[in-house]
């Protein structure tokens, strides 16, 4: 009889918390590895088009120009597609100075190899892209990369 009586009700053993730091570190490392640093926060919708004839982009010599419709929280800028460089909307005339500045910030040996990455939403009118390209020609930044998502080859 006494064999059963011994079990008292509130006698649960404490859960060991010794492994908690490990779990936390694991999560930390995971997020450190998986996060992509984005240096400018996007104020526009940016669904990239698909292509399969793609080349890799060389980060060290690339500057980005974004374009697309302002996203939900920036509706006050209208619904027409806008151009974004770094963290601000810019007018078409501001592209050239921005390109010159970007060239200035590059390493000496890469200055004449600048590539402009165009991250343009696929719903944008291509007239806007033509305007951007015209400005780039005037700024003599002739290498352009249309950044796309990679579609699997059929």
């Amino acid at each position, binding site marked *: 009889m*006494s*064999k059963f009586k*011994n*079990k008292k009700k509130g*006698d*649960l*053993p404490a*859960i*060991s918390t*010794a*492994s908690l730091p*490990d*779990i936390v*570190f*694991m999560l930390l*490392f*995971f997020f450190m*590895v*998986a996060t*992509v640093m984005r240096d400018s926060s996007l104020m526009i919708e940016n669904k990239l*088009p*698909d*292509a*399969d*004839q*793609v*080349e*890799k*982009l060389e*980060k060290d010599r*690339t500057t980005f120009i974004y374009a697309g419709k302002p996203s939900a929280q920036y509706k006050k800028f209208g619904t027409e597609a806008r151009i974004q460089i770094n963290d601000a909307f810019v007018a078409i005339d501001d592209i050239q100075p921005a390109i010159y500045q970007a060239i200035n910030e590059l390493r000496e040996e890469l200055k004449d190899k600048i*590539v402009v*990455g*165009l991250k*343009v*939403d*696929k*719903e*944008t*009118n*291509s*007239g*806007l*892209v*033509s305007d951007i*390209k015209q400005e*780039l*020609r*005037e700024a*003599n930044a*002739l*290498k*352009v*990369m*249309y*950044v*796309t998502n*990679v579609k699997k080859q059929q």
Partner: protein
Amino acid sequence: MAKRAAPEVNAGSMADIAFLLLIFFLVTTTIEKDKGILRSLPPIDDSEIEPPIIKQKNLFTVLLNRHDQLLVEEEEMDVKNLRQAAIDFLDNGGGENAEGETCTYCRGKKDPTSSDHPDKAIISVTNDRETSYGKYIEVQNELVAAYNFLRDREARRLYNRSFQSMLDEKAKNQFKKDEKLNAQIETIKKMYPLKLSEAEPKN
């Protein structure tokens, strides 16, 4: 009368499990890299030189209107047929290039009403201002694919390897120049020079 408290779970191996998972994620996650279509813009030319007259048969006109419809050589076409049409045009080789050589490596139909030589064949893309960018890229992609297909075919015929593998090797050894490889890549690029012209959008 044995005291039967539940035994404590041994936590000593927890760290091992954690590290195992950590290493697993370290190995499997890839940081995404941007990719895209690289293109050179034409420099601004102020000189008043008359552009050379290009024969209509050497010009492959692609029109893309504001409703994203495609007109290729005066005929409506679906985007998925554009690649083959461009390959047929570039690879036709119906005549001679500027130096008077015939295209010995072309495998096209040698149709006298289509392009003379890949040297002379020009693809001209015109789009409206209101064409969607997605469609525009789709068309560009198909045209680049046509060039890549022909270059790859020649690379396999001449050097028995894919053109992409040659470019990859060049990119890997960008600091030590491999003259032979560069010369091979140049040869193939010269066989099918990328002549894609883009007109200013009209309306």
